[in-house]
């Protein structure tokens, strides 16, 4: 394919020809092209369709602000919707598709919307589609939704990786145009740690797009030299293809580096993109400026673009959007555009200058005091209508039109902490107002538009920042550069009865803004939300100022009095995958593995997520096809002989010091002061509001040494709470605490043969007979010939049981040793399911019962709240609402018909009462099939339940339209007297 619109020169590497396709058609471009520049060089101006009216569109910019030329890039799982062709770097094999049309890009059936535009004026949908009521969800909305949206997702998992990184610097320079480079050079030469970030792949900013000289070299060459100098310095890091997306608190900036987007696929081991968090002492914002359009009838035709973009395409990429080009301007930039075009050999058919008194221009026909009133050429511009100063209308043929309405400083990052920009009447633009702490603004971003001013302000900004850091800057060595004044005569739109576009992507026209005004949507936020102006993918970069100007005219206010919308991060759109980084899919959160994990995995255990932990849920044996078979077996084996369970996940907190007992006495609602050494006690911990926070056992290993356990779920929170109490409430209690959860591997050994098994591994000098080591005893021992261990005689299962702890690294060895020792007893390892079954059979509360809304009284432990001492939560437990006569009590339930199954989450309704909220008596929290009893059992909270034992009520499950008659019983289903655990 021939590149019919390719010019001479430019910063492209013609030795590297790149093949690519657009809508299936093959093209060629060069290394250094963007998709947009390559398409333009191939004579393609039509690249997309607008959102609402499906108008044919081409690029209006050469940068990240592009609202029109957005495409689906790549294919398969890497399909990337809404990619701006203007910044998509060309690579060999690139494939892109136009988006948002039904039919082809040229013949889009939904372009009918454009014919019906009058019916689709701003906010029309708020006024209709209301009748008949049911039609909204059935007809209207599905229709709207089908038509809406831009690009499409592949619906496949993104195959690429994203990384996150952290960088630190003295000075962050945002933007590598003339001011940014001057700032970076100044700071770097003084030895400061500098990070220079630029969104382009070629640093230089506008220097790459203009024909200015700096000193004796071209702007682009000067930029390259500056980058070369900076790259050689160890205190400088240059991040190209990196957009700074947000200015966050305390000098933290977010930045997105597009590491691999210019490649067909990321190189081996490389991420697609990196989200950087940059910690900077100071920052120089040198983000440049964005040129703004002038609205006129049909100003959205493919071929019409910003004058500065036109210069960039011609100068940097040697591509022209048309053989003959006209320019429409209200400032001197338009004249420069015409000169550049002529220098490149492009025919300039006219320069239409809205200023009657602007400077003269001789290179082409210069129509002063004239405006463009219409553009012709639906799929590509072929001529414009111009209203001359005389009032005469003339049609001028041209394939492209460069429009310059002046420039808007890119103030966005200055506003991310709610700073407001201020209006500069000379520039007819908003410039930075109050700044985030540590930020200074330089160059065009600060309204200093000439190259000389940009260089000087960049150097000055860096010097100021260094000074604030106590570093001294060497005097800047800046080249000579153009220093033209900015002369702009504001012109926002050309009045006409036709439609003139403000927000091109969202199809918001001057008429829409006027309608919004007519209907009272006059504040800038109402205007935005009512018309959707500024809500497109460019977030108003190319549209907002024009809309504000129209509204200001309507209300008779000034533009600054009309206001601006809020600038929000990110500066340009960021893939969601980049914010997630590696924490996606299976790696969403780390996995914590128990010490016996490897052993359990070898046994074929089924694992379950318990917070971040993976625990063995059950361990199926050969022939077991249903989980209940495994669980029932594990329970039966444990209750019948002995079972082992890894309980390492339970929180373990070491509490030491002379005041340790007093500390625990205040942390728990029940007393701990008099717990003897060598004994364990159950403790119930309340929140200050009197609700149960956690429970567990505490062992007194020495006068001044306790070990407290927490539930798995609350291990972190309980420790935090204890530190709060220690440091903030009682800072002079002499007590130290430390979490030892990960220091100890802990196993429960339960069942009638538990002692016999343990006696085989506990070293013989330790007597663990019932007399020497009774129920609720504890002690430090050794096992397996000298390995230090802790033994606690506590039971969650209700059996004769111990918990034995060894240093974590011996956990795997211990479980293997115990299984070996237990072989003669047919010992089993049981998982969390069997653990749960046995605790339900014993009526122990667990996470389902300690749900944050249950008090000691609800849990049947009201009597434990000791009123003779101060403890967290005891005072507020006294409130009337927590002591009502019909308070919920934890009780047991069994089905009247033993064959029935109970379900957690059933509600209780009295017999004969309608099943409705008024008659709700409580809810089932935990259920299990009890292999010991041969039927379902449940725990639950029942109003006044403690006094209702023996009563038969209904457990209802309206979700499944079922109910079961249940008998209210004691929660202690198995061995209610507790004889087994004392044996």
């Amino acid at each position, binding site marked *: 394919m021939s590149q019919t619109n390719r010019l001479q020169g430019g910063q492209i590497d013609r030795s590297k020809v790149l093949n690519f396709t657009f809508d299936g058609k093959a093209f060629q471009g060069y290394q250094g092209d963007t998709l947009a520049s390559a398409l333009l060089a191939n004579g393609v101006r039509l690249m997309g369709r607008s959102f609402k009216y499906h108008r044919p569109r081409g690029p209006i910019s050469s940068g990240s602000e592009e609202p029109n030329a957005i495409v689906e890039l790549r294919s398969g799982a890497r399909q990337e919707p809404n990619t701006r062709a203007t910044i998509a770097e060309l690579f060999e094999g690139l494939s892109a598709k136009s988006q948002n049309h039904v039919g082809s890009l040229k013949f889009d059936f939904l372009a009918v919307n454009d014919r019906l535009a009058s019916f689709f004026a701003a906010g029309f949908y708020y006024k209709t589609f209301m009748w008949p009521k049911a039609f909204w969800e059935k007809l209207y909305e599905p229709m709207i939704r089908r038509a809406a949206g831009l690009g499409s997702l592949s619906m496949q998992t993104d195959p690429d990786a994203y990384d996150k990184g952290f960088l630190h610097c003295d000075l962050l320079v945002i933007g590598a145009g003339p001011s940014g480079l001057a700032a970076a050079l100044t700071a770097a030469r003084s030895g400061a740690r500098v990070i220079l970030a630029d969104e382009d792949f070629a640093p230089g900013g506008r220097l790459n797009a203009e024909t200015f000289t700096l000193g004796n070299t071209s702007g682009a060459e000067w930029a390259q030299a500056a980058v070369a100098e900076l790259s050689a310095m160890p205190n400088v890091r240059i991040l190209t293809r990196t957009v700074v997306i947000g200015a966050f608190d*305390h000098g933290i900036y977010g930045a997105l580096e597009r590491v691999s987007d210019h490649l067909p696929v990321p190189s081996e081991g490389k991420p697609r993109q990196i989200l950087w968090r940059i910690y900077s002492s100071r920052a120089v914002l040198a983000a440049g400026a964005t040129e703004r359009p002038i609205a006129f009838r049909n100003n959205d035709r493919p071929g019409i673009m910003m004058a500065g973009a036109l210069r960039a395409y011609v100068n940097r990429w040697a591509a022209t959007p048309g053989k003959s080009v006209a320019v429409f301007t209200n400032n001197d930039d338009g004249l420069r555009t015409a000169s550049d075009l002529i220098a490149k050999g492009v025919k300039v058919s006219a320069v239409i200058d809205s200023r009657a008194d602007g400077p003269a221009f001789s290179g082409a026909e210069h129509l002063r005091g004239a405006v463009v009133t219409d553009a012709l050429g639906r799929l590509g511009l072929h001529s414009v209508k111009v209203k001359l100063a005389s009032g005469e209308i003339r049609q001028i043929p041209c394939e492209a039109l460069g429009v310059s309405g002046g420039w808007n400083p890119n103030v966005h990052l200055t506003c991310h902490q709610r700073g407001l920009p201020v209006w500069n009447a000379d520039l007819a633009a908003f410039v930075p107002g109050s700044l985030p702490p540590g930020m200074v603004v330089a160059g065009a971003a600060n309204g200093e538009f000439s190259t000389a001013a940009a260089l000087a302000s960049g150097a000055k900004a860096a010097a100021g920042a260094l000074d604030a850091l106590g570093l001294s800057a060497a005097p800047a060595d800046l080249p000579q550069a153009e220093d033209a004044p900015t002369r702009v005569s504001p012109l926002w739109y050309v009045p006409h009865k036709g439609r003139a576009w403000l927000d091109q992507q969202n199809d918001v026209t001057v008429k829409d803004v006027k309608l919004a005004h007519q209907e009272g949507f006059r504040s800038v936020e109402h205007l935005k939300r009512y018309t959707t102006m500024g809500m497109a993918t460019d977030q108003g970069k190319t549209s907002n100022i024009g809309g504000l100007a129209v509204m200001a005219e309507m209300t008779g206010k000034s533009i600054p009095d009309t206001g601006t919308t809020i600038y929000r991060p990110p500066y340009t759109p960021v893939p969601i995958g980049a914010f997630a980084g590696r924490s996606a899919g299976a790696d969403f959160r780390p996995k914590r593995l128990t010490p016996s994990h490897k052993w359990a995995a070898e046994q074929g255990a089924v694992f379950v997520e318990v917070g971040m932990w993976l625990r063995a849920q059950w361990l199926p044996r050969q022939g077991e096809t249903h989980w209940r078979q495994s669980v029932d077996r594990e329970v039966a084996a444990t209750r019948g002989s002995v079972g082992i369970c890894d309980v390492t996940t339970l929180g373990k907190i070491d509490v030491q010091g002379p005041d340790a007992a007093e500390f625990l006495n205040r942390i728990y609602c029940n007393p701990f002061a008099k717990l003897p050494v060598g004994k364990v006690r159950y403790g119930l911990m309340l929140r*200050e509001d009197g609700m149960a926070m956690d429970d567990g056992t505490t062992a007194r290993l020495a006068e001044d040494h306790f070990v407290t356990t927490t539930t798995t779920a609350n291990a972190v929170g309980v420790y935090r709470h204890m530190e*709060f109490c220690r*440091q*903030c*409430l*009682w*800072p002079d209690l002499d007590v130290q605490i430390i979490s030892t959860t990960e220091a100890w591997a802990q196993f429960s050994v339960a069942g009638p043969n538990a002692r016999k098994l343990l006696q085989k591994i506990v070293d013989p000098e330790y007597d663990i007979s019932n007399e020497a080591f009774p129920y609720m005893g504890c002690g430090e021992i050794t096992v397996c010939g000298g390995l230090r261990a802790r033994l606690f005689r506590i039971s969650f299962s209700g059996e004769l049981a111990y918990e034995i702890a060894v240093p974590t690294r011996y956990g795997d060895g211990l479980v293997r040793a115990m299984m070996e020792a237990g072989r003669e007893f047919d010992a089993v390892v049981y998982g969390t399911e069997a653990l749960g079954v046995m605790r339900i059979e014993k009526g122990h509360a667990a996470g389902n019962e300690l749900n944050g809304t249950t008090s000691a009284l609800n849990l049947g432990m009201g009597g434990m709240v000791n009123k003779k001492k101060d403890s967290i939560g005891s*005072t507020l437990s*006294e409130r009337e609402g927590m002591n009502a006569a019909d308070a919920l009590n934890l009780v047991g339930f069994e089905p009247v018909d033993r064959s029935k199954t109970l379900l957690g989450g059933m509600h209780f309704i009295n017999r004969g009462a309608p099943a409705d909220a008024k008659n709700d008596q409580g809810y089932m929290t935990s259920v299990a099939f009890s292999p010991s009893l041969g039927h379902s059992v449940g725990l639950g909270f029942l109003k006044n339940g403690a006094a209702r034992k023996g009563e038969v009520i209904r457990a209802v499950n309206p979700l499944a339209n079922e109910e079961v008659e249940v008998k209210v019983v004691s929660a202690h289903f198995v061995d209610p007297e507790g004889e087994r655990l004392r044996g």
Partner: protein
Amino acid sequence: MIINHPLLGPRDSQEFVYLGDASLIDRPDWQAENAVDQFHEYLYQRTNPAGEHQELWFHEQGDRSWLVVTRNTLTHEITAVELARDVARRRGRSK
């Protein structure tokens, strides 16, 4: 945000867990006659200032210090960071 830990220097706030108003240090006397009222005020009522706010942060991913951070709730500017233990002692808390 960055919290300048009095012992460890500047740390990312992501290392910390936030609790709330530093008035949570001022736990009432359980034996006071209107103890329930006092505890109700202590636990549930907040001045919630728009401006300078003293608040409790726990260095969970660090040295496990509770800190009292003085931070402006309008600008997020941090003007002081102290160990909560020191603040608690200054407010008369002991054992």
